[in-house]
């Protein structure tokens, strides 16, 4: 599966190399061509190469997903560690907020943001990020809290080392495992969310290639050119399955010890 995941990432990262055609070049002569040698996945309503668009679209989706997961991971982990380590009133307030926002309807946030700022990648990212960083923060906090109460951290307290030293040397390395696992499992969910928002027109705005918006556009002429829906759909499903499977495997492995 790692091989598949790597293949997907490389294919889309170097979309320019693998793509046979310009994904944005419209051509009136080849509108809705069925898959053929020149256009492996056919063309869409504007005569654009679906295969190239799937590759470039993958780049948009995957890059946005990784960026979002990474930012949430960074922010969430830092806040979680600080809350878990120091406790106190700030921690309690944070936990209340986290309890409430955990699972808060992302779509509602996205709609609120899009309704006011207008549609766009920024709104979609904010909408998804607002709940995602919380999951990292909660996880980091609970692990920090339990590591802090482990005998080895208590032992270090007697040596007079600074809080920063303890967090960086003892706590952070020991919570990386579970938090990174969470990052991996979040990838699939984030892709579903991002492409869903784009599909609704609340995320990436056409003509930028993105799987969700490609499917949304092509839906109108699905009877005439089903390939322009099926290939991006298949790409989406396969990618999500690959990353979800990876997440499951790592999770099982960690649970088994």
């Amino acid at each position, binding site marked *: 599966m790692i091989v598949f995941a790597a293949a997907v990432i490389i294919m889309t990262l170097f979309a320019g190399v693998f793509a046979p055609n310009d994904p944005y070049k419209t051509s009136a002569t080849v509108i809705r061509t069925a898959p053929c040698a020149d256009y492996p996945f056919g063309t869409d309503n504007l005569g654009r190469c679906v295969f190239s668009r799937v590759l470039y679209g993958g780049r948009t989706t995957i890059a946005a997903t990784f960026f979002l997961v990474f930012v949430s991971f960074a922010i969430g982990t830092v806040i979680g560690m600080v809350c878990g380590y120091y406790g106190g009133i700030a921690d309690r307030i944070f936990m209340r907020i986290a309890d409430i926002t955990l699972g808060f309807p992302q779509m509602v946030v996205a709609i609120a943001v899009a309704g006011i700022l207008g549609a766009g990648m920024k709104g979609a990212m904010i909408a998804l990020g607002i709940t995602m960083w919380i999951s990292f923060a909660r996880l980091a906090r609970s692990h920090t809290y339990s590591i802090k109460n482990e*005998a080895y951290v208590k032992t270090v307290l*007697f040596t007079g080392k600074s809080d920063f030293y303890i967090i960086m040397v003892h706590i952070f390395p020991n919570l990386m495992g579970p938090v990174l696992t969470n990052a991996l499992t979040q990838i699939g969910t984030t892709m579903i969310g991002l492409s869903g928002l784009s599909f609704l027109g609340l995320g990436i705005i056409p003509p930028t290639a993105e799987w969700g918006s490609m499917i949304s556009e092509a839906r109108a002429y699905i009877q005439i050119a089903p390939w322009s829906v099926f290939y991006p759909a298949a790409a989406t499903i396969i990618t999500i399955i690959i990353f979800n499977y990876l997440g499951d495997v790592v999770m099982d492995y960690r649970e088994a010890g």
Partner: protein
Amino acid sequence: MEHLLEGKKINKTFVTKGKETTALSDVSFYLDEGEILGIVGESGSGKSTLLNVVSGLIKADSGELFYGEENYIGKGPAHTGKFLRMIFQDAKSSFDPRMTMEKSLLESRRGKQDRGELSELIKAVGLEEKLLSRKVSDMSGGQCQRMSIARALYSEVGILLCDEITSAVDVSSQKQVVELLKKLNESRKLSCIFVSHDIALVSMLCGRIMIMKDGRCVEEGETAAVISDPKNEYTKLLIESAKKQSF
């Protein structure tokens, strides 16, 4: 006479779920230089809380704690670490799973590091030097517990607070750890508070004993005197039960 460590009228109450539980009420104790004091009690007697208060890990509600003439109540472990170290029940979790033993040991000393002394100490606690390059997952519970004693010694303090340190290891390691403490007590004048639920074990190691129940000290005195002629009802029951486990 001046005591090495002394606690006066220590009180501590925990609040969980809106309910108050008194963990310590008016507990006083002292520890003289070169002495091993045993504290015996069952779960919930407050013995571990007392040790945590003495070490500075938990703050007492009221009372006084003296190290020599210095009242250090309210000070945290960063301060108390200059003269005492605590050793915990769970030996394996006393070491960072990602660190080698050597790193863990070096970390414990505030002053100048001395690797020669380190290897000497490892031998003094009955371990081999090559264990220093290991991580905790490759060591047994008994080895870890001796390693944590070595770590405390390397930090150059004179007082060890032992919290049920032999409860999680098998009987032969338990014996080894106890013998080691005895030896260090004689050779290095190490002073020690030894908390345990096992009165038989304490009777083998400690010169003086304190019996705790429900957050109070119910009896205190020379070990031999307390065991052969207990005054308190609870102490009698405890000794009675312990006798049923000896042969």
